[in-house]
């Protein structure tokens, strides 16, 4: 087992070398990118597939990342953003099929299938032990959703035995509920849409997920639900990159800075949130 894994490891290294060499000899694009970025080592990153930036996401967090009804194309703020980043790096952006949120970080940590995880992932110190994060591209908070007919709720009124609160597994929303409402029962589900569907049908008293997502869902699809409590957490989203690939983190940071400077990010914010954040 050990021996074969070493061989596999060797193969991976060999592939990585091949990719980086071909990346260098491929030349033009990476070269120009490096020069605009004023640091030469930004080009030294490895990709799963040459010339492609492969993205892992749960695609279940409208308006950040989602799949519109009737189409199969991922879209949303983050999708536009990572496409712009890929453009900056001279790469083609490719999305993996939607996966569960709690599998994205292990997948990136493991490496070999996706280059980056972009799925409104909050930068936390625990997660930073698993993966590297790029600079933050957006600030966020948590939102707690109930039925509109439920009236006023408070943290105290929800922190009771028998209260069931739906969350998306592995999110900061989930750990907020575990920590702040220890008496309530946490129900971990696959995505915020399932959670809010459960609230709508009366299965759960409340659902907690990222505020922009909850606001979007409540005003677009689940009009009989409302954001009852806005939870100020001030968390920041970052793009997750494998720890063995610091060059890619650097390169994406460079691209994000450029996009911030030339106003692309503000444009995207207006496009998806109606206002600059």
């Amino acid at each position, binding site marked *: 087992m050990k021996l074969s894994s070493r061989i596999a490891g060797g193969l991976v290294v060999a592939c990585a070398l091949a990719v980086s060499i071909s990346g260098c000899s491929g030349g033009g694009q990476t070269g120009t990118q490096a020069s605009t970025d004023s640091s030469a080592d930004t080009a030294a990153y490895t990709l799963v597939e040459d010339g492609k930036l492969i993205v892992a996401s749960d695609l279940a967090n409208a308006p950040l990342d989602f799949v519109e009804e009737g189409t199969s194309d991922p879209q949303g703020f983050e999708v536009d953003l990572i496409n712009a980043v890929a453009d900056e790096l001279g790469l083609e952006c490719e999305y993996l099929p939607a996966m569960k949120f*709690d*599998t994205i970080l292990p997948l990136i940590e493991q490496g070999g299938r996706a280059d980056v995880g972009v799925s409104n992932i909050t930068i936390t110190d625990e997660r930073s032990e698993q993966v590297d994060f790029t600079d933050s591209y957006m*600030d966020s908070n948590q939102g707690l959703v109930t039925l509109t007919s439920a009236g006023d709720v408070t943290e105290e009124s929800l922190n009771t035995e028998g209260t069931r609160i739906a969350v998306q597994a592995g999110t900061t929303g989930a750990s907020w509920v575990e920590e702040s409402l220890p008496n309530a029962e946490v129900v971990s589900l696959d995505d915020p849409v399932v959670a809010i569907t459960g609230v709508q049908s009366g*299965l759960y008293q409340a659902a907690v997920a990222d505020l922009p997502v909850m606001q979007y869902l409540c005003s677009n699809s689940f009009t009989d639900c409302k954001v009852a*409590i806005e939870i100020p957490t001030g968390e920041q989203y970052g793009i997750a990159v494998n720890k063995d690939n610091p060059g890619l983190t650097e390169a994406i940071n460079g691209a994000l800075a450029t996009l911030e400077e030339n106003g692309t990010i503000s444009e995207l914010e207006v496009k998806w949130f109606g206002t600059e954040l």
Partner: protein
Amino acid sequence: MQHRRWTLLAALALALTGVFALAAPQPARALTTEKATARPNEDGGSGVIGGMDTRLTWEGTVEDGEEVTSVTLTLPEGASFDHSTTRITALEGLSRMDVTGTATPSGSSITVTFDQTVPAGSLLRLEITNMQFPAAGGGVVVSGSYQTGDGSHELADSEPIATIANTPLQSIVNWLDQQPWVQAWNSNQFLGMFLRPQLLVTSFASLAPGWILCLGIVVAAYPFAIALGLLFAMLKISKWRVLRAIAIVYINILRGTPLFLQIYIMFFGLPMVGINIDNNLLGIIVMAINSSAYLAEIFRAGIQSIPQGQYEAASSLGMNYVQTMFSVILPQTVRRVIPTVTSDFITAFKDTSLLSSVGVMELMMFSKNLTTVTGNITPYVAAGIFYLIVTLPLIKVVGTIEENIARSERGGGPRPRPRRRAEVADGAAERMKEAEAAEGASVSAAVAGVSALLASPNARAKEASDVC
């Protein structure tokens, strides 16, 4: 919401100070402790264990007209902030402000000095990762002090955080953490990701209730599934077209759609029409209904594999249809379908995993939660082992039964000793008496004899080909 509460409280405090203007005024607090919480760090549990790394989250609001330059949080003796990292968040309403700072741990307290002053009216959050609470456990109160422009002030005590002392299970895990072979094992990426020993230990302990629930659901559902399945099998072979149609629709829809969809419809649809059933009970109902469709087909095939000659034989003995069914056909069917039904039971047992998608706390749900917390796949492997504990013996049972049936169908297996003609005649007389005494039990044997007499060579060939 919180802010409104605090302004209310502040108003109340003002009113009180107005009333008791002569009494000694409370020292004004510029930084009010909102709350202090800790992240559960019990592997597979929800407790906060002392002496092990966890995360402390402390929140406070800066009152009007004040600015805070540093905060010191103090925990009881025995707590440790060594090797911790601190994340500072300052918020005005919901928007994040640029506040950075440095954290300096010293024993059981930590001082966070801000590069910029934290302005009035803002919510300050400190998340201190990889700190440890006192190993003894108990209610831990966060106290401390803070610096404003005009000096140092005491911080109000937080509500106590409930912590517990180390558990035996956790001690095993901590012991495993120290072992060199465990470290070597985990350094292999695959083994560390799928078969991490520490996580196997905690998974087995914390998955057990989920496993019991899985078994409970399928064991409780199966008798109903068998009854329902039998009912629909009977309907499907009924003479009446309407009954057949009902059975065909029921069986085909349930067999033709994913169980996942059926679960969704039942769990999200029923509450919408005002029917609220306990989740576990609903799980049993869904599994029973789903299995019943498969069982109906199995039973139908089983019943139809019994050769036509036996019906003729039974009616020649003067039995009506119901008698024929219950004392001749079904007893033989049961024997033939046992292996297939057991296979279906295995499938149903594994299918309970789908219930995790709607929040039933079964095996997969527990492993999902554990995987979430640990970022490791091992809990799923542990769940797989739990499934195998049930399925492997059952698979063995199916194999054995199939072998026995095959042998007896071939004509092998135990058979009566050869007897002399006179003995056979005596036996027949005896059998007549038995038949009078206990009709149901022996009638089927008699019928089998008669059917053998009646069966033409053609019917025999059919019997052989119909065996399911």
